[in-house]
């Protein structure tokens, strides 16, 4: 058939039922069109078909025949398309970039008929494209603004503090960035896992020979017996509890039984009822069942099913308790919903193995792959693909062990791309929490005590459960001075999906409880909710519940000061609105948070390297993976500033375990702080070497032009390569049995206000505005910081109002709802810069802090509007209405 793609007539012989997305990607090699779901739900595959936006995954090749197809690869040919791409870069509208091609094409449909659209028209146009990173606001800005970018605009500076467009942005808006599914050797075999549809069962696998005979292209069925090394993986070195292939026993719906290996056609043609599997069902355990006396042990090494218990106990002199608030709170499973499902390939090269896949933690992947293959780590090379979103979900290995095993055994390259449903069913989730808490303050509103008891459903496997159990008690009392704290967080094994790392590691769940109780105390004490927080806010010099003195950079008071005028205005507006009466009630809520940057009381070093070759090639060897948050750009800005050369002269080598040093994982909001400091050290070290070599003074001006280094205008001849290496490991002290110690070297602080309307008849919530004040130490790149805040808030909105993963029920993006372009209200970002002396140029982290206060601020506003306190999120309309009715009964 003939397709016209980006103006070029193209002949292709794809079968007529092939999805257009597959034709474009697999047959024509146009991988700019992304696939996030194959079901019309994410819009990542949006292309223009005769000028109309369509999901390429829902268009059969037969129906595209004779039509003009336009994809992201053809966008720049249209001057308006090129303008739109420039606007995206300028506004920071692409973070991980996986949604970007779809966004651009959806926007083009609109811009073609209205080059200066309203925001509402833009929302309608991109309403069918999901973005998990940006919170949409910068995307909408960029689309509205595209007409102003018909000619290239001057780039802003690249100094620390400048709004430098992201360095990997051009590839993302052009559709050329290579994600996990975008590249593989032509002769790669396909691997397709088969997963358990049952949450708890034993199984036996019979003879697969008939299956292999019935499917000629099917080469092998890989099972537990085929694992050359240890058939287990897991984040903690002493808790490798998750099998690559289950060995006769499954612990959750999604556990991997085996993998089919062969040609793509063959593995895709297998229907699982053709597999010789005999099941013996077992009753699935939830938290209550798992903790019940006599419950079976899901893992032999943890009798009683409690994986870890984190504790904090601090008793300091305190005034008498006058006001007391207590309550129970519940949160559900939350799915990361990165738009890029897990994908990649592995290739055996002699006695070594290479894995190209999306990841947040290449060095940890290397350990895991080496372990399952029984190889030394040096024999494993991890090459991270561009990462289409992670949010904690790509810290654990997913496809890596199994494709590595398959490639190792067969000697042939092996690739895999998970379907959306497989991704959601198998990957880790945010821990559901059941929290009982009690807080008290004195007559003046000074906090006296917090008691916190939380059960966190860690699911079938440990993953990051111990991290959550460790982090929650530290943060449970919030960013306040609380003299008496008793906090316990248990991670409990169940037959649910493994809960792992998700933006905040349990702190967002804890904040929902803690902030609700502090609201209640403020009300009882008759103190404004913002002033109550200002009164109790941790300040520099204060001692935390772990006994740590926060010496510097505790900007919560500054955040609250910045919010105060907004708070007053929004409260006044709400009062005026509510005075009119009616079913719609307006409310204003506030919540604060703190967040320890980096690992909890554990070493988490980063090493950065900058080299300067005699031929003048300046290379930044940066092992940190940019998952969209912007570390590639931020670390380059820091390194450049420390060295004294512009960002543009650096060549970048990024996150490849064979080339770069270990920068640690992209998690815990640590890359700007930890790797940033290492980058600063590396830049400074190279600078010192150059200055020493040239006997130049400390403030000498460096330049690098056409491969020639100049110091204070004088050319320098380099006889040998120079390098600067920087290392940083934030100083911490491990927590003792009572949770005392110095868990983190620094903390991010923030406060957010939510203004919203509750429809008291329908229980629906309409967000009006979020005002977010964040102490980031130093905003190395304010556009990227705002992007993190917007994106974190969008995820906080999802947590508060709509997201709930229910195995077997909401395992697609149709039934699992994340915010769309119409669900994020205007956000005011206020950046507070209370510098952290340990951080690079004073910077701390922002990735996770952005999300933590949003849900509690929204719940606070719902309570303010209606008097109804939600004890369970998401606050779906029926839950809000139930809470309203309960409130009426309580009266």
């Amino acid at each position, binding site marked *: 058939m003939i397709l016209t793609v980006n103006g070029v007539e193209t002949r292709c012989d794809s079968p*007529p*039922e092939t*999805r257009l997305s597959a034709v474009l990607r697999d047959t024509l090699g146009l991988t700019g069109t992304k696939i996030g*779901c*194959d*079901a*019309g*739900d994410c*819009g990542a595959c*949006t292309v223009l078909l005769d000028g*109309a*936006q*369509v*999901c390429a*995954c*829902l*268009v*059969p090749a*037969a*129906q595209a025949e004779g039509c003009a197809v336009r994809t992201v690869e053809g966008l720049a040919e249209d001057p308006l398309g090129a303008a739109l791409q420039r606007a995206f870069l300028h506004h920071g509208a692409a973070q991980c970039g996986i949604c970007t091609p779809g966004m651009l094409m*959806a926007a083009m449909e609109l811009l073609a008929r209205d080059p200066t659209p309203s925001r509402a028209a833009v*929302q*309608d*146009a*991109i*309403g*069918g494209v*999901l973005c998990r990173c940006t919170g949409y606001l910068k995307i909408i800005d960029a689309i509205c603004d595209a007409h102003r970018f018909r000619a290239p605009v001057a780039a802003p500076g690249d100094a620390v503090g400048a709004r430098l467009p992201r360095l990997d942005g051009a590839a993302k808006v052009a559709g050329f960035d290579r994600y996990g599914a975008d590249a593989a050797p032509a002769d790669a075999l396909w691997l397709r896992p088969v*997963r358990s549809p049952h949450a708890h069962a034993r199984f036996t696998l019979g003879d697969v020979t008939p299956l292999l005979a019935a499917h000629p292209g099917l080469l092998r069925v890989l099972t537990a017996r085929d694992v050359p090394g240890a058939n287990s993986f897991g984040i903690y070195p002493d808790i490798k509890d998750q099998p690559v292939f289950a060995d006769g026993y499954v612990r959750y719906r999604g556990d991997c039984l085996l993998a089919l290996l062969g040609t793509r*056609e063959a593995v*895709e*043609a*297998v*229907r*699982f*009822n053709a597999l010789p599997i005999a099941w013996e069902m077992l009753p699935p355990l939830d938290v209550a069942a798992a903790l019940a006396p006599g419950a079976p042990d899901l893992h032999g090494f943890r009798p009683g099913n409690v994986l870890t218990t984190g504790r904090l106990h601090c008793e300091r002199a305190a005034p008498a308790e006058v006001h007391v608030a207590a309550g129970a709170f519940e949160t559900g499973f939350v799915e990361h919903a990165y738009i890029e499902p897990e994908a990649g390939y592995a290739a055996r090269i002699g006695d070594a193995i290479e894995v190209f896949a999306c990841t947040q933690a290449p060095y940890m992947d290397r350990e895991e792959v080496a372990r399952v293959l029984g190889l030394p780590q040096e024999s494993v090379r991890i090459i991270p693909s561009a990462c289409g979103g992670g949010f904690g979900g790509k810290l654990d290995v997913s496809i890596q062990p199994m494709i590595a095993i398959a490639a190792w055994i067969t000697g042939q390259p092996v690739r895999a791309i998970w*379907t*959306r*449903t497989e991704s959601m*069913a198998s990957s880790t989730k945010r821990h559901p929490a059941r929290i009982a808490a009690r807080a008290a303050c004195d007559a003046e509103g000074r906090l006296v005590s917090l008691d916190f008891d939380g059960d966190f459903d860690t699911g079938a496997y440990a993953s990051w459960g111990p991290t959550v159990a460790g982090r929650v008690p530290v943060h449970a009392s919030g960013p306040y001075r609380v003299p008496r704290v008793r906090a316990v967080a248990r991670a409990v094994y169940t037959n649910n999906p493994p809960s792992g790392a998700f933006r905040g590691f349990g702190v967002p769940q804890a904040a929902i409880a803690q902030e609700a109780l502090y609201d209640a105390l403020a009300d009882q004490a008759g103190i404004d909710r913002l002033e109550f927080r200002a009164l109790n806010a941790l300040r520099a010099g204060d001692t935390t519940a772990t006994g740590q003195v926060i010496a510097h950079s505790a900007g919560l008071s500054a955040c609250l000061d910045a919010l105060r005028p907004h708070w007053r205005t929004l409260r006044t507006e709400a009062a005026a609105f509510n005075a009119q009466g009616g079913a719609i009630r307006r409310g204003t809520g506030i919540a604060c948070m703190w967040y320890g940057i980096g690992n909890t009381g554990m070493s988490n070093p980063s090493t950065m390297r900058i080299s300067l070759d005699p031929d003048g090639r300046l290379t930044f060897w940066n092992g940190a993976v940019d998952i969209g948050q912007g570390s590639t750009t931020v670390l380059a800005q820091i390194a450049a500033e420390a060295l004294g050369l512009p960002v543009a002269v650096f060549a970048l080598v990024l996150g490849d375990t064979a080339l770069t040093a270990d920068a640690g994982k992209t998690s815990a909001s640590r890359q700007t702080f930890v790797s940033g400091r290492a980058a600063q050290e590396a830049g400074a070290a190279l600078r010192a070497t150059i200055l020493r070599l040239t006997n130049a003074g400390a403030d000498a001006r460096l330049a690098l032009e056409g491969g020639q280094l100049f110091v204070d205008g004088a050319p320098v001849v380099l006889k040998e390569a120079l390098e600067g290496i920087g290392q940083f490991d934030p100083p911490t002290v491990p927590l003792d049995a009572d949770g005392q110690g110095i868990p983190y070297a620094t903390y991010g602080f923030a406060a957010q206000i939510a203004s919203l309307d509750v429809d008291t*008849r*329908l*229980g629906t919530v309409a967000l009006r505005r979020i005002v977010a004040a964040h102490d980031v130490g130093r905003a190395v790149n304010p556009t990227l910081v705002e992007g993190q805040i917007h994106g974190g808030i969008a995820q906080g909105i999802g947590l508060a*109002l709509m997201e*709930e993963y229910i195995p077997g*029920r*909401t395992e*697609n993006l*149709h*039934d699992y*709802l994340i*915010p*769309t*372009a*119409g669900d994020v209200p205007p956000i005011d970002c206020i950046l507070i810069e209370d510098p952290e002396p340990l951080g690079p140029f004073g910077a701390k982290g922002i990735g996770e802090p952005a999300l933590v206060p949003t849900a509690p601020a929204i719940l606070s506003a719902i309570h303010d509007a209606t008097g109804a306190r939600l004890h369970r999120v998401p606050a*779906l*309309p*029926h839950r809000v*209405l*139930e809470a309203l009715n309960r409130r009426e009964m309580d009266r």
Partner: protein
Amino acid sequence: MGRWLRPRSMQEALALLAADPALMPFAGGTDLYPTQAARFAWGQEFPDAMLDLGALPGLAAIEEASDHWRIGARVTWAALRDAALPPEFDALRAAAREVGGAQIQNRGTIAGNLCNASPAADGVPPLLALDAEVELASLRGLRRLCLPDFILGNRRTARAADELVTAVLVPKQGDARRSGFEKLGARRYLVISIVMAAATLRLEQGRIAAAAVAVGACSPVARRLPALEAALRGTRPGELVVTPTHLAGLAPIDDPRASAAYREEAALVVLQRLLARLGDAAGVQAA
């Protein structure tokens, strides 16, 4: 490997279908492909012998005849949304604007929505409130079924395996009517309705002379509400308080989107507001 047949004429299509009733008609694919994806993920069987309706002539038009409007089976939501139609179609057009996102509206068809027979199909309440009929063709001939006789249950229709839906027919009722649609979901775009309602009203001197009201997502198939329609007659729009007795016949269920009790309560509110809004619109019109 599946089968894909792409007939160029209705006669050919009907002959293919008669010869192989297992063939699945394929219009916009916005229901079929997602179902395939969901089943593929768990290694389940899915239909893969398709009769592509994309090349059939004459199914993509909205036509006005003397006593009815004819909406071709392949008319998309976008075409309906953008069509110039009389006000009794406002509800249907509003529903079209709320289906999925722009991509789904550009591809999904009205007939696909009816044939898929989801309890939450947004096209059904507005068409119920328009007394629409479904036209079916087979080699045996043409027949028409009124919508309640066509959609029999959750994912069940009266379509025989050798039949295609060729059009949705909306009778002209001779007098000016106004209509409206309300959809309630947990997010702004791309959302399946928790509850939705459509109403078509004929007013005489500010009072309701005839009402057709339907609610979806509160029963296996969206339903008209005869008790409410009867009670509305003679009242001013918005005047009547909608009560649970008016909802006789609805049987909402609990699912992850909402509880049954909530759906029942929300249906009352949505209906009350929809009727009030239609009254306001009438007032504006009269003034």
